[in-house]
């Protein structure tokens, strides 16, 4: 995903990033030629066990997914070759491409809101980042990262239920008319699932941004203040550019979480009501394990894997360092 750009900024490290590796040959030995001279197969012996299990479990399974996607198969009996017809079904059946569209809507909640709100919150609390309150907050804001997503889904299903806390609060402030079973209403179920995801990811993004802001030279802010810049100007001219890398990382993590969401949806709505919260991950699960349409499930799986890579690749230029 991202490159290990956060290692300590040693001059010889930059050389060993991919890209710098192959061309380093022929330099003087002291200028940081990467790698220790050993017998050529020693390295392979170290890599081999890890690579073997990775190849058997992951690479082989990816290949099998491709293969399955070209057949009609119930998972047990004989299979028939159907070419690309399963992919045709993924792109024409509204139930199937609808799940992909839902996943894209979830990006708004899983990525845009946590990153946007996280930036605003982090720059507001930047000044008190060293206080005791902020130290406590570091622990508290991490809680959603530690618990299983299913537990988050369960807790929020209860908060968003018709007698839950959210409706209780709404009624208290005189918005009793707006109360509803948020996860059971076709028009609000998807945003409600999105809110759960936003809750899980907001703390992580905020803390990553705070950590990034800690590395910004404080004299930059002082200089900006002397020049008469307000908080907004400060944010646009200093904070945002310095956090390029952190923003890239947060977007990458959260976009994957949105496109590949499964746990939260499974536990809170099961894809319903109707198909209003169906996402590709859940659709694959249903297709393969209850409707026994392994071919279509695999075609959707290939589309999902491709989509994740297509969405995440362009974000990687953000995580690269600007110079060099």
């Amino acid at each position, binding site marked *: 995903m991202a490159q290990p750009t956060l290692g300590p900024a040693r001059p010889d490290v930059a050389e060993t990033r991919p890209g710098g590796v192959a061309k380093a040959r022929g330099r003087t030995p002291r200028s940081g030629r990467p790698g*220790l001279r050993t017998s050529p197969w020693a390295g392979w012996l170290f890599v081999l066990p890890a690579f073997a299990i990775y190849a058997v479990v992951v690479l082989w399974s990816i290949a099998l997914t491709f293969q399955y996607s070209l057949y009609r198969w119930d998972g047990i009996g004989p299979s028939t070759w159907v070419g690309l017809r399963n992919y045709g079904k993924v792109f024409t059946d509204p139930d199937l491409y609808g799940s992909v569209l839902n996943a894209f809507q979830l990006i708004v909640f899983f990525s845009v809101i946590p990153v946007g709100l996280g930036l605003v919150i982090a720059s507001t609390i930047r000044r008190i980042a060293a206080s005791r309150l902020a130290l406590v907050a570091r622990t508290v804001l991490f809680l959603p990262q530690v618990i299983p997503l299913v*537990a988050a889904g369960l807790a929020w299903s*209860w908060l968003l239920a018709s007698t839950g806390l959210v409706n*209780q609060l709404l009624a208290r402030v005189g918005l009793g008319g707006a109360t509803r079973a948020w996860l059971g209403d076709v028009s609000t179920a998807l945003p409600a699932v999105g809110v759960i995801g936003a809750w899980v990811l907001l703390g992580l993004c905020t803390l990553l941004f705070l950590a990034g802001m800690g590395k910004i030279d404080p004299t930059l802010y002082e200089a900006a203040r002397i020049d008469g810049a307000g908080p907004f100007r400060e944010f646009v001219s200093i904070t945002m550019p310095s956090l390029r890398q952190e923003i890239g990382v947060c977007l990458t993590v959260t976009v994957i979480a949105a496109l590949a969401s499964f746990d939260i949806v*499974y536990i809170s709505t099961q894809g319903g009501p109707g198909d209003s919260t169906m996402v590709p991950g859940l659709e694959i699960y249903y297709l393969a394990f209850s409707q026994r349409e392994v071919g279509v499930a695999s075609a959707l*799986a290939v589309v999902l894997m491709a989509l*994740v890579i297509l969405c995440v690749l362009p974000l990687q230029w953000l995580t690269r360092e600007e110079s060099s």
Partner: protein
Amino acid sequence: MITAHREVWTGRVLLIGLMAITVMPFVSLFVTALHPSGTYPPGLDWPSHPHWGNFTGAYRAAHMGELLKSSTLIVVGVVPLSLILGTMAGFALGHLRMAGRRLVFLTFVLGLTLPFEGIITPLYSQVRDFGLLNTRWAIIVPLIGLFMPFSVFWMRAHFVTMPKELSEGARIDGANVWQLFWRIHVPLARPAISSLAILLFLWTWNQFLLAIVLVDDPAKRTMAGALGAFQGQWGTDIPLLCAGSLLILAPTLLIFLIFQRRFVTALLQGSLKG
């Protein structure tokens, strides 16, 4: 400095608000869990007679003892082996000179973004063909493979920063590559390895998809997978469900609170590197 003062106060208020939103679901679960079993209490309402017995009831209903044992066995199966293999591969890719290492590393990187749903169907048939369905191996073996890209990536990022002179000195003293790895580099890599161990522990313990697909018996699943079954069985008894959910997320919460500093660092670094 009036503006600075005001900013400090808005910062405090915002931070407290954010913490309140983060904690709210847990508080709601807790309060609801104290109501009489089988009732539909309003969202946040302290009961006149708290039913602490719901927790023991849920402990029995969820077979917590078995679940803890099962999750622990799965973690013991996944984490140590992943650490050893990942560290070895990361060492070779980050520190040794070997032909084709760039290609190997890129192949691992390819797996970093993989959604598990993408390969769950072939995993199911492979696990079935090996006769491992409904055993804990059905979760352990695939997870080691699925976590390998991150483990290798993480350890390589550490070994790339180790100065080559360190190893050259040891080589001159007559150490072979294996001794160099175990005696010099593994001890130095301890912080990176322990952070990786924390992340792998969390991801294994909280793994849901593999658990519900590959293992039918909740007692052989991970904690998270068992929670899915618990909801299916007790979904109508809200107080019991809430008590059970709290019990199921208590172990990670407890371990997090004990090792919080390491956890926070590991998670922050983990997302930055991953």
